[in-house]
């Protein structure tokens, strides 16, 4: 037997399989590197350059972009002061994202529970109803929300109609409008993961708990909640992250003044003409998102080891 030759034939086949795999992967990797991941690195470089006068950059090293994230140069006093405008936008972004997540949880959890407790057949229909809005245009849904809450919109008309108020309430172009809009557009992202973890949940456990003298609230708190916690964590992160980076909803429902981080970033590439600052803000946002994701991964790991 010429065994070395045969063994190398096997190695050859192995090597060919590896080559095939990478050949299949290269196009996707290339597109994603050029069209998504690579530019992030270029942006990191840009955040350390000097702003050009009419947008763009001068290829001179500068930390101004990063300094301006938190400080503004006061041209009268000729000193750096805390950039209140930026800080308030940071604060609003985080605050609205947290509020949105909590509201989405408040509405999403019961909805997921409702779907999970339907009969096998109708469950798919309800699920379909939740999913459809998610796949339709975010701008259109935001626009629909805008029509409903504007001063002449359905909400105000109805409230005036039934005599609850005399004057329309100004909702549009407020922080409330942004939060409402974000809850509206991101709600399916909360419902779906919670539903997914509830679908696996054995509802006989609830009956067992009732049998052991648990009250409704206790069943919810001690039996259901701990078991669907992974879904809740996943849903919360799925709502929190796009809220933090929201652009369309605050732009349409917040008007020009109530900006969030996304709008502030865009501004630097438009009228602001401060690309390094925009790049630095983008990276800051990215870091915030990564922190949230990291938190999620750790929570998920703790959850799985706790129940595993």
């Amino acid at each position, binding site marked *: *037997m010429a*065994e070395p030759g*045969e063994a190398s*034939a*096997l190695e050859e086949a192995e090597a060919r399989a590896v080559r095939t795999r990478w050949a299949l992967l290269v196009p996707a990797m290339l597109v994603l590197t050029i069209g998504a991941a690579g530019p992030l690195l270029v942006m990191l470089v840009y955040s350390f350059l000097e702003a050009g006068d009419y947008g763009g950059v001068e290829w001179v090293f500068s930390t101004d972009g990063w300094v301006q994230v938190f400080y503004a140069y006061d041209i009268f006093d000729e000193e750096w002061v805390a950039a209140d405008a930026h800080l308030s936008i940071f604060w609003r972004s985080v605050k609205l994202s947290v509020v949105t997540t909590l509201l989405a949880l408040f509405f999403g959890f019961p909805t997921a529970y409702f779907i999970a407790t339907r009969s096998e057949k109708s469950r798919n229909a309800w699920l379909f109803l939740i999913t459809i809005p998610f796949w339709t245009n975010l701008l259109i849904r935001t626009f629909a929300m805008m029509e409903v809450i504007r001063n002449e919109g359905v909400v105000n008309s109805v409230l005036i109609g039934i005599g609850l108020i005399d004057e329309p309430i100004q909702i549009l172009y407020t922080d409330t409008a942004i939060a409402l809009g974000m809850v509206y557009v991101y709600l399916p992202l909360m419902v779906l993961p919670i539903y997914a973890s509830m679908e696996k949940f054995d509802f006989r456990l609830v009956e067992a708990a009732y049998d052991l003298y648990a009250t409704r609230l206790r069943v919810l708190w001690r039996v259901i909640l701990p078991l669907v916690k992974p879904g809740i964590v996943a849903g919360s992160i799925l709502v929190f992250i796009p809220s933090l980076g929201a652009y369309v909803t605050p732009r349409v429902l917040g008007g020009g003044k109530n900006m969030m981080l996304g709008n502030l970033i865009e501004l630097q590439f438009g009228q602001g003409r401060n690309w390094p600052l925009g790049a630095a803000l983008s990276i800051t946002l990215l870091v915030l998102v990564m922190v949230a994701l990291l938190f999620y991964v750790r929570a998920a790991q703790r959850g799985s080891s706790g129940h595993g």
Partner: protein
Amino acid sequence: MDGSVRDIAVEAENVSKIFGSGSDEVRALDDVSVGIQDNEFFTLLGPSGCGKTTLLRLIAGFDHPTKGSIRLAGQDISYLPPYRRSVNTVFQNYALFPHMTVAQNIGFGLEMQGRSRAEVRETVGNMLALVRMEALANRRTSQISGGQQQRVALARALAPRPKVLLLDEPLSALDYKLRKDMQIELKRLQHETGITFVFVTHDQEEALTMSDRIAVMSSGKILQVGSPRDIYDRPSERFVADFIGDTNFLEAEVAGKEGATARIRLASGVEVEADLPSGMADARQVTVVIRPEHAALAPAGQGELQGRIANIVYFGTDTHYHVDLDTGGQFTLRLQNPRGGRELHGEGEPVGIAFEPGALQVLRD
């Protein structure tokens, strides 16, 4: 079976297969050599993890040996890909193509071989007839029952007329009744087609009823190859005796040898004749085996062994007597029940045990 010398269809020579490496190394096959003859129903029998499926996969070409070679009709095929060997497989889960009809499934292999359309159609027709599935030719494979899927899988693997057909526990997914029917059906197909069948199973009964020859495997080795009768009556090793059927093991001493038989002395001091396995090394202390149905109860004081009946279990066709031997250990007898018969002995009664002549077999280990 008839002892005439036939050509070897497929042969494994010193084949080893090692999966993984370092501390995870698993030796699935350990220096296995076996020759499977033309037109033979050959069974690889053993518990799960014994290497029987690995050997099958090496013959099919789904895996390649780490050492040694596989030959098909004399040609070394060890490293040939599966699509270049005249070997077809019936898979455990059938692996029928769900996007094709029954007829398309059966014709697939012929089509891949580049046979003409007319030839494919004709062969598919013949195959459908062979497995009695003509009426369902245009059904989707998801629309037919498990037994029917089994037949389609057989027809698909037989259609290209392979030199060897491999069957990987094909009956395990069927219920008892269907399994019995398929056992007969498989024997018929093997006779009608004249193709060598290599059948893998962990079911000893299946192996005994269907095979021309059986290879009993354990821990990556082939322990014994022989006809079903050989394997059952003359197990050469403890594992084989234990794995197939029920057995009584007795410790004994060799008193003398004459050709293929030996005089052995049992613990009770009685000397009896026992068959020796081939290639047996000289040893003083040996284990002998005797099947429960190859002994009878005798009045106390008579027979080769003495003891006391521990319990009696009625099984319908036969009754099992568990006897505590005076020399220690237990002995099981299986006695056929005559109609209207009743137990002749009671529990706790002292009895003798008489062996049938030539019922004892010495084990190699």
